[in-house]
């Protein structure tokens, strides 16, 4: 295992939209940045979404340029399929050990042609498709992945060697070893994102065993133009659903599941998905069961009202239980509190849960920062005035690593973290671009307090 050494101004952990934005904002100021992403492609969760609320922009269309901008940026380098294992403080910054996991494909040789993928006989559930579609044991992570480089899932590989045979550049290398890279950095930005709580967490909702109960991210893939089925079908039997229910707070705001906080994005993505569903299946009846509709952001309330006007039904109820009838239709049990308070069982063809947004990574293992006991997200020491400050000077946080939030809020925070990091970097004597001497002072700024 060779020990490469890299030296940058800032190390950004996480190559989702927040990490990319923070890296771009630093790189644009002339700082050298390394992004370390644990997945085989940058893009994070955003690249897997169908469309974004409340603008209904195609998520991939607005995310890919940002991915390309980071990957082409002359001040930004990117390591994908790599994980930060440990960080220590040095006299003038940090030293991180980054594990480059083996792809078993030589990065420099792979052209992303996918011939290996077509030749591979092994079919596995595709993580990118929320387990709904299939991938091979050697595969390019997804269509618009950056980098477009294949990797071998060695655990499931049967070592038949077909990929090796078809690869035009002989890029497959089963002997590739993990590599540890030492990264010296002046500052660190954590943009490690989120994960959704597992459906098995709530036994009352079938504990993940009901076939036609999906989570929000899976439905994003169903709705994406390049999704696993190419259209919206329920996974249990491939039937086109006539009635779809959204179950909000299926993990959040629930002390019995250990998540007392609001996950902040679920109301809006449920409404968005409902709108997209009624666009692609004009006859579908959609019901959203909610505790409070939290359409708090810019343009959100109008979006919610539009959804209501479109005929999407909103029912205030905490769904207590989901069972299945003999046709695999999920059956929900609720108190009809907006009427007489009776208890009803309602049958739908497909149910979408909005699970809790949980921290994507526990930084306590590898980075020195504290997390909050209440929610497990990175602890912010100055949440009001400097939202990106963590318990460690020089380490900053952005996006969902510091609590659930939507794309613009993540991007804003990424900018803030970049601002804080660049101030810190200048403080320790690292500078970005050196400006040319000003060409003639056209006005004097009087340093006066009036």
């Amino acid at each position, binding site marked *: 295992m060779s020990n490469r050494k890299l030296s940058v101004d800032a190390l950004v952990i996480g190559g989702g939209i927040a990490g990319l934005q923070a890296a771009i904002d630093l790189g644009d100021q002339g700082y050298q940045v390394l992004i370390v992403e644990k997945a085989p492609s940058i893009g994070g969760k955003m690249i897997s979404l169908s469309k974004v609320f409340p603008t209904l922009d195609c998520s991939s269309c607005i995310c890919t340029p940002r991915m390309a901008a980071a990957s082409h940026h002359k001040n930004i380098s990117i390591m994908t399929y790599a994980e930060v294992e440990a960080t220590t403080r040095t006299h003038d910054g940090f030293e991180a050990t980054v594990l480059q996991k083996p792809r078993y494909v030589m990065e420099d040789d792979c052209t992303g042609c996918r011939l290996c993928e077509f030749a591979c006989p092994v079919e596995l559930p595709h993580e990118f498709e929320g387990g709904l579609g299939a991938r091979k044991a050697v595969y390019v992570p997804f269509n618009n992945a950056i980098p477009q480089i294949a990797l071998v899932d060695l655990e499931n590989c049967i070592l038949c060697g077909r990929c090796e045979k078809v690869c035009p550049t002989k890029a497959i290398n089963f002997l590739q070893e993990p590599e540890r890279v030492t990264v010296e950095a002046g500052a660190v930005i954590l943009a490690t994102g989120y994960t959704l709580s597992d459906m098995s967490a709530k036994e*009352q909702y079938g504990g993940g065993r009901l076939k036609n109960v999906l989570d929000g991210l899976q439905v994003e893939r169903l709705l994406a133009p390049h999704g696993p089925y190419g259209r919206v079908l329920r996974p249990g039997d491939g039937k086109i659903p006539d009635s779809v229910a959204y179950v909000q*707070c299926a993990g959040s*705001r*629930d*002390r*019995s*599941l250990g998540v007392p906080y609001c996950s902040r994005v679920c109301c809006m993505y449920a409404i968005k998905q409902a709108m997209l569903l009624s666009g692609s299946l004009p006859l579908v009846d959609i019901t959203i069961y909610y*505790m409070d509709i939290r359409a708090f952001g810019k343009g959100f309330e109008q979006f919610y009202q539009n959804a209501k006007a479109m005929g999407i039904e909103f029912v205030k*109820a*905490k*769904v*207590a*239980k989901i069972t299945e009838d003999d046709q695999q239709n999920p059956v929900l*049990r*609720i*108190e009809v*509190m907006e009427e007489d*308070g*009776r*208890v009803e069982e309602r049958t739908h063809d497909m149910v979408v849960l909005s699970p809790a947004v949980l921290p994507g990574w526990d930084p306590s293992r590898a980075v020195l920062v504290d997390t909050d006991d209440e929610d497990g997200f990175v602890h912010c020491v100055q949440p009001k005035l400097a939202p990106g400050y963590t318990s460690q000077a020089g380490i900053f946080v952005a996006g969902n690593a510091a609590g659930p939030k939507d794309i613009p809020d993540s991007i804003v925070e990424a900018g803030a973290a970049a601002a804080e990091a660049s101030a810190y970097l200048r403080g320790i004597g690292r500078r970005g671009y050196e400006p040319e001497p000003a060409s003639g002072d056209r006005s004097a700024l009087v340093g006066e307090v009036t």
Partner: protein
Amino acid sequence: MSVRVNPDLREELMGFGGDDVSACMNCGNCTAICPLSKDSTVFPRKAIRYMQLGMKDHLFRSPEPWLCYYCGECSDTCPRDANPGETMMAARRYLTSLYDWTGLSKRLYLSAAWELGLLLFVALIVGALFLFLHGPLVRDHVELTTFAPTAWVELGDWILAAMLSFFLLTNAYRMSRAILGGEKVPLSLGLREFKTLLIHGVTQKRWQECESPTRWLKHLLLVTAYATMLLMVVVFLRWFQTDEIRSIWHPTRLLGYYATAILLYVTADAMISRLRKREQIHKHSDLTDWMFLILLFLTTLTGIFVHAFRLADWPMPTYIIYVIHLMIAVPMLVIEVPFGKWAHLLYRPLAVYLTTVRDKMKAAPAGTQASAG
């Protein structure tokens, strides 16, 4: 007419254990998760909302708290940890105090001093009665019927039963009026549905719908044991309390052993569970919950001693433990049955009966209208 909110009720309910009423955010999970919450009787949120807003009249008219068997699923899944199950328990205590026209029930629930004091007071009366009125003390062998002549004890039993029934039935009458909202029940319907009252009174069969049968079975056994004992000491005392040592196969002895074993096991089991606090129903224990168990356990235990000493033919210990036995059993029955937790033995089946009757009354006019139209 709008409902005037009365925030003071919340404070009042705290005394009955309803501390978590305000933690509820009215999401409705509890009502929907409850397997017994259906048709016209939905709970717990309805009662909880009444309690939050101080809708005392609505609460007074609600049979729902009695229909809850505290399986604890609502509390297990409550998103706010607001303990709806325990709140229903508090509602039952509060309702017991509302039904009770003497006002004694309320004092007992709100004050440990009253509860313990009153139990002690009755115990002392029983003790005093024996101290001054006991029969001759036969010291060479046990002759309990001489020490406590069966006829006198029987008389005491009947007085006790009459008092107890008087309070319990008058309170139950108030409960019925409240739940039926003053409406007259057609006699035929009332009688026809009487079987509901009996069946539920004996079996508590609704319980099985919300839980694994273990606890229901334990409770059912407890009911049979308790009923057996009660019948033997009240109705069949002259066969039960004899000085003759009967064959071990004699029905009174067999029934006695059966009842004793059950009582001892179930009460001990419940007490251990309450100490362990694993299941929702046993997580929260009021003094009245403990008194109920402790008194029943002690009654049983002292009963065993009476029996044992008698078999051992130790006269004085038998007489003394007999007095102690009654000093525990009598206050338990006098205080706990009409005014305390034991009242549920009537209120629960009565609530099932009354809601059945009420629903049938509501359904009937609609039916006639439909046929008329």
